[in-house]
């Protein structure tokens, strides 16, 4: 286990000795965070990242001129 629990269930991210280890530790940390929070909560945070890169692609159908 690459994380350290305290008494309030909060876990702390242990700094990795290498970049790879640090990234791996963050994956454990984030998965723990996901399990402790609702889908709606963690996905809102994930979407801050995704939606900052990927544009909104909602489109209008050429045929019906309605949003699909």
């Amino acid at each position, binding site marked *: 286990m690459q994380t350290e629990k305290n008494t309030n269930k909060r876990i702390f991210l242990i700094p990795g000795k290498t970049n790879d280890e640090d990234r791996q530790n963050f994956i454990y940390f984030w998965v723990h965070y996901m399990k402790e929070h609702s889908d709606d909560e963690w*996905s*809102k945070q994930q979407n801050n990242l*995704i939606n900052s890169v990927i*544009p909104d*692609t909602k*489109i209008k*159908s*050429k045929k019906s001129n309605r949003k699909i």
Partner: protein
Amino acid sequence: MDYKREERRIILNRELSNLDDFALNFTRIVKKHARYVIISGYVSILLGRTRTTEDIDMFIMPISKERFNELYEDLIENGFWCLNSDNPEIAFDYLKSGLAIRFSIENMPIPNFEVKFPKDSLGLETFNDSIEVILPKGDLIISCLERHIAFKRYFLKSKKDLEDAGHIEEFFKEKLDYQKINKIKNLIESFEKP
């Protein structure tokens, strides 16, 4: 997130991202014409991995040229375009040759769907044990988690792929079939041998 392994179903009450909206809009059209399975990086992202991607990989079950033409026209009529050709026959030839073709919203190349026919029995097996992900505004079909981990870890193997596999393994570790991962690993290695 609730993974019902026996039912091969995940209930995911997430806020949809722009990528999820794109995936749902594209697959709503594709599934009218062909069986599909979403594979690789987007599977990890959909299930919470903290990264994004400009493309979503998808297998479609091989279909006839006529059926592909119908799929192609339906996509065009709904505002998508093919990045590889505006001629469905050429696009189909690419697919038949084992190449992937990409579709995006017209004049918006990012994000895009990378669509391909499976090349071998390992790829075809992806359709046999796929998982349905139920989202608040629709559903998506993804490859099974054990297959996803095995391909990321033992076939693709890049740092990004290993991290994608690590995320899924850590989240679902109590529900994974590790014998199945090992079996797929062995199959991948047997396919790679000359």
